[in-house]
């Protein structure tokens, strides 16, 4: 319950505050959002599996975001930022898909 309310609260805050993305954050924010999505879906799956642990969730969330940002940063420094961003997105997308598939099996039994 509170989790859903928190999500809604964040979305509403973003809509009403209309913050501008700082320039230094601009290349990292999209990747970070995708990484966080991956963590959230993983957490949901763990919850449905009955093995959810909030500590694990926090750590995985933060580390996902940080690693994604670091990879993009490193890629920019190495001159392969674009390609590396694409690679990260692909990997995270695959993970999200598999997590969502597990969640689907739990909820719909299919």
């Amino acid at each position, binding site marked *: *319950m*509170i*989790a859903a309310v928190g999500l809604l609260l964040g*979305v509403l*805050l973003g809509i009403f505050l209309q*913050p*501008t993305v700082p320039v230094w954050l601009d290349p990292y924010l999209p990747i970070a959002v995708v990484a966080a999505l991956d963590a*959230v879906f993983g957490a949901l799956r763990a*919850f*449905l599996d009955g093995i959810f642990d909030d500590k694990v969730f926090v750590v995985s969330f933060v580390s996902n975001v940080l690693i994604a940002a670091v990879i993009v940063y490193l890629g920019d420094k190495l001159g392969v930022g674009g390609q590396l961003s694409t690679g990260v997105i692909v990997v995270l997308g695959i993970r999200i898909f598999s997590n969502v598939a597990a969640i689907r099996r739990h909820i719909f039994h299919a």
Partner: protein
Amino acid sequence: MPEAEDGRARLLAALRRPGSRGQAVAAVLLAVLGFAAVTQVRSNGRDDSYVGARQGDLVQYINSLSLASQRAENEIARLQGTRDALGNDAQSRRTAVERAREQAATLGILAGTVPAVGPGIRVRITDGGSGVGTNQLLDGLQELRDAGAEAIELNDQVRVVAQTSLQDRSGRGVVVDGTVLEPPYVIDAIGDRHTLATGLQFARGFTDEVEGVGGTVAIKELPQVQVGSVVVPKPPRYAEPAGSR
């Protein structure tokens, strides 16, 4: 957390209950995620495609832009050259037309195809019987031409040009270019007034000749003489300009 067998039941239970510490943590993180996602979506919607671009991409953008602008500048230079050329063309054509018009006016006055106006003299000749005829008039016209008359007219009816012919008519008067003129004769001549007048008046000249056969000559110097009659030019049948072909 009660151990429910089913994941779905566990989820529904979690949604119904206010929640535990784990839910609160998840709420905070989800709030952060929602906030970031909305922010990113908004910034993505804005037209700032160059803000997060990488250096290499930016360099490429700049290169292609400068290439495009260079191409546009070349195009501008080419079009400006064309415009200047066309302008020069029009200018020179206008000048040529102007010059041709001036020349046509000059030649028209000389050939008698256009009316003329200017300072000159008006000579009135009475024949006092029958003495004055082609001989005297021809002499008078010749003197006027010698004195530099630019346009000559007889009796306000006939323009005197290079091809003008004079003929005595049986009885009275003369025939000039097919037109019958009767005395008194009036010669309008445009030119330098004093020169024209003295050209007619010198000793044993035109005036003496006319008076010798019983006529009178009255010369009036006028600041403005109208030569209104014109001749219709006939295209030459035999002669053609030499060297223009």
